[in-house]
Structures are given as C-alpha cells and as structure tokens.
C-alpha cells in the first residue's frame, strides 16, 4: 500500500508529458470493453431474477416491470433450498476447522525442523501438487470404509490442503525462533504455545488458508455428484444443478437461486479480497 502511494505521488510530481491523456482514454476504453464481459452476465442474472416468467419469455434482456422478491421466495421454498444451504454451511465449517487446525500442527514442527525428515515431509506436500488425480482410488476408499453417501465421508474428502501447509510454513519461518526458546524457558507447554502464541502471530496466513479452503468446499460440485446420492445431503451447488435440470427454462427463480448462492461469496470476497489474492499468488512471484 505505502509503495503504491509513494509511486502515485511521484507520478504527480513528474512534469506532465505530452500525449499523456490520449493513452489514458485508450486504457479506459479497453477496460470498459472488457468489463462488458464481466458486468454483462451479472446484470443479466440480476434482471432475470426480478422478472416473471411471461415477462422473461417476452423480452429476456429488458428491464423488469417491477422489483419484487417473488422469485427469491419461490426459489427458497421450491427445492429444499434451506436444507441444501445448511448442508453447505456444515461441510464448509466442519472441514475447514479441522483442516486448518491440523495444518497448523503439521506446519509448525516442519517450519522449525523439530524432527528428522521434516524437509522431506515438506517436499511431500509440494510434490502433491503434481501427482496424478486421486479421484478413482479415493472413491474406492470411501466406498470400502462404508462412508459413501454420508456426511462424514464427504467431509473426509476436504480435510487436507497441501498449498495451505506451504503457505503456513512460509509464514511460521518469519516468526523468530527466540520466541520458542523464551516461551519454553517460562515453562509454556508445546500445544499451548502453538495455539496461544503462534496462531495469533500468523493470523494473516491462517486467514488466507481458511478463506481459500472454505471457498473451495463451498464451490465444490463434482465431488458432491460422485459421493452423494441422497438429496438430503446435497450441498447447495448440487442443489442448484438439480434445480436447473428440474426447472429447465424457468430462469427467473433459477437466477434468484444463483444470486442467493452467490451472495455469501460476494460478501466474503469484498471483505477478504486481500487474503484471497495473496493466497492465490503465494509463491508465484518468488518463482
């Protein structure tokens, strides 16, 4: 932030160059053109969600005649929506909590090198990103554990996050080692030290991992198609696809349903954009 601000004040101090305005107009027009592709689908969704079906068929792209919430109410009541939403919340909260807690406990001793082979263990987390897809044997595993079509089985799939470990390890390495030593001298136990002292210090990394992991679970569609057949267990993404196959061209309530699903993501994104972006670009620039 500060560098950006410094840079912009520098830009102001610099004498205005000839031809400076023209490229700026050019930039804005290209950006404007590109944003049509991004605002367009969003706007279409929004307008559709406020139309009645006959209105939608008459003129799909026009403005709705009135802005009522009938479609949202309909979407909510039609397709077990509250139950799907509840399932998504349960899967996301439970799996993310377990994943982040266990990840911190894995990342800390690795980052400190507190046992032999910790380097190799980190490597094992890094190469995971290049291993073949685990889809088929994972399915056989869940099937043979008797966890097919169950909440526990579905949650089990989301309990690890190798990228999260890498992000946490990097952040823990920035915490000075002397802290461990003095805490240990003062008689602080290991578990208490990690949870009460390390965790608050690496809060940004934890926020990043939490948000990324939660988004991944919230958005997951394919695994829910593979592992869940009982529609009482469906997360909301799956519910949306079922909704689509049942209500086909009845776009207004479908659009409303999409908007309902999108809202928590949008809010999360607007408030936590910093963490999401830093997680996705983590390590990318260092190369």
């Amino acid at each position: 932030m500060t560098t950006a601000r410094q840079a912009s004040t520098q830009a102001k101090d610099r004498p205005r160059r000839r031809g400076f305005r023209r490229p700026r107009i050019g930039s804005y027009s290209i950006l404007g053109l590109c944003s049509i592709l991004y605002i367009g689908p969003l706007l279409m969704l929004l307008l559709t969600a406020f139309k009645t079906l006959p209105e939608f068929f008459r003129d799909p792209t026009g403005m709705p005649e009135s802005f009522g919430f009938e479609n949202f109410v309909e979407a909510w009541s039609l397709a077990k929506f509250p139950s799907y939403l509840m399932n998504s919340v349960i899967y996301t909260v439970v799996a993310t909590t377990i994943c982040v807690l266990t990840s911190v406990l894995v990342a800390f001793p690795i980052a400190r090198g507190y046992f032999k082979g910790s380097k190799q263990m980190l490597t094992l987390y890094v190469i995971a990103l290049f291993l073949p897809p685990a889809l088929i044997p994972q399915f056989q595993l869940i099937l043979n554990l008797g966890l097919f079509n169950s909440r526990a089985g579905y949650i089990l799939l989301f309990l690890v996050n190798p990228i999260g470990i890498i992000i946490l390890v990097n952040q823990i390495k920035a915490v000075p080692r002397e802290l461990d030593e003095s805490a240990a001298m003062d008689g602080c136990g290991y578990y208490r030290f990690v949870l009460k002292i390390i965790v608050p210090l690496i809060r940004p990394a934890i926020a990043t991992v939490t948000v990324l992991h939660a988004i991944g679970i919230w958005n997951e569609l394919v695994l829910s198609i593979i592992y869940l057949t009982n529609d009482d267990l469906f997360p909301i993404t799956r519910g949306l696809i079922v909704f689509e196959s049942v209500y086909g061209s009845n776009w207004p309530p479908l659009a409303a349903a999409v908007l309902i699903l999108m809202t928590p993501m949008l809010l999360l994104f607007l408030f936590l954009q910093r963490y999401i972006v830093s997680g996705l670009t983590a390590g990318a620039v260092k190369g």
Partner: protein
Amino acid sequence: MAIIDRKYLFDKGWKSAAPIALLLPGFLLYLLIAVGPSLATAVYSFTDATGIRGIPVSWIGFENYDEFLFIGAASRDNIAALVRTIYFCFFVTTIQFGFGLLLAVLLNRKLKGTKFFRTLFFLPVILGVAIQGLMWKLFLLPRGGPVAEFASLFGWTSEFLGGQPRQAFAWVIVVQIWANAGITMVIFLAGMQTIPERLYESARIDGAGGWQLFRHVTWPLLTPAVNTNLLLNIIGSLQAWQLFLVLIGYRPGTQVLGYLVFAEGFGQVSGEVTTAFRQGYAAAASIGLFILVLVIALVTNVFVSRREEKFLG
C-alpha cells in the same frame, strides 16, 4: 522420542513427543486421502475394478491401456478427446495469458478506478463452476439472450452451447478464460509491483516510449510471473473439464480427457450417477492424462528455465 531436534526446549521426557503426536493426525490424513489414492491410481489402472462394493477385483495387466488406445470406435473417440484436450489447452493458455497480461498492464497504470476493475475481473475466480456455468448459460440464451441479440445485429444466429460441437466447445473455452483470467491478472500485477519505479524513470529519461518501456523493462523483469502463469495455465487447462459438465454435459464431439475419466468412472449423466462403472479403465485414462500433463509441463519448464537464464542470468 529421539527424533526431536536438540534445539527443542519444550517439555522433556515423554511429553517431548508432543510435536510428532500432534502432527500425526494431519499427516496421516494427508497420506490416507491424498497421496495414497493418488499413487494408487496407477495400481488401479491395471485392474478391472468397478464402482460396486464387494465385487472381486482382478489384475488384467495392460488391457485397460490397450483398449483405451487401440480397440474399436471408442479408442478413436479417446484419441479425439486427447487431441481436443491439447487444443483446449492451447487456446485457453494463449488467450488467457494475453488477456491477463493486457488487464494487468492497464491496471498497473495508476488510473482512477483500478481497484474497481481489479475486483470485477477477479470476481469470477471465487464463484465456482456451478455459478459460473449457470451465469453463462443464461447470458448465452439462444433466443433473445444478450449475446444472441448482439449477434443478430450482424445477422448471425447461433444455438451457442446447444449448437454444433465445435461452437459449443469454443464457448466453453470462452467461459474457461473468463472464469480464470483474474488469477493470471493478479499474478502479473504482483510481479509488476516488484519492478522498481526508478527503472522506468531512468528509461524515460533515456527517451523510451510506452511500448519500449514494456518491451525492455516490464517484460524481462516480469519473467518469474510470466513463467508461473504459463505453467499454471497449461496445467490448469489440461486438467479442466468441470465447466463442460455444467455448460454442455457429456456430448459427442466435445469431450476432453478429464471429463472422460469422470464419465467412465462414475457415469455419464450429471444428475444421476450409478456406481456400476469401469473404474480400472477410468484410472488408466487418468494416468494417460497425467502423463500428458507431465510431458507438456516438463517441456514448458525447460523452455521457461532457459528464458529465466537469458533474462535474469
């Protein structure tokens, strides 16, 4: 436990095993649900495993691979899917790379409103395939939808996602790029922020114009971000298939390898999935995809490290 480092000063005695004991749940879970299954994919590819519990599984050697590549009409479809995967990768990588770079260059210019644009272009990344797919299905509504209306200004009509396989395929490419260009953009932007402003200053003093600044300052110093994006885009697009599922389903003439694995292993219809499918065969197909990704990624990596040497010495 003796494996504890001697710099470790917390509790002595049996309690000193705490780090290992607390690490184990996470690590074992990782072996159990990620690394193990991943390696076991190769094992399963030599069996006739199905998705049904209790049916005996037997070794069949290379039969799955043989059948996948050489036997009957299905193998021709498989080869076609493989070629299509490479096309998909080529178009998605090149266009997404260029588009992401363009956006990053424009948004790195300290214009007003860059924050808004950056948020807007990044937004689809966090939405997930279900929302991305449904949004574009609506946007590409063949009768009266916004794109259809726009196209009809030029007298062009199309069924878009429901049209000819080639057309549907092309639209999936568009949506794939739309959905992921935001990541490419932020990685480029992060790379650009590491380039010191004074380099631009001195180049300007030497009389460099906009294009020359980009060509001789931004582009070479952006090498790490360029390489990351190239690799991420290539690997990502070779493995991508979920938008196909949401946008067009399993249609002849549009499948890519990733979708083929899913369809063979878990059934072909998105709504109803039975478990009586050929998982051994699907495992062989996913090993095929893995080898394709590996080969292309390694070749790219060689190319990319040469570039890095050239620019960053």
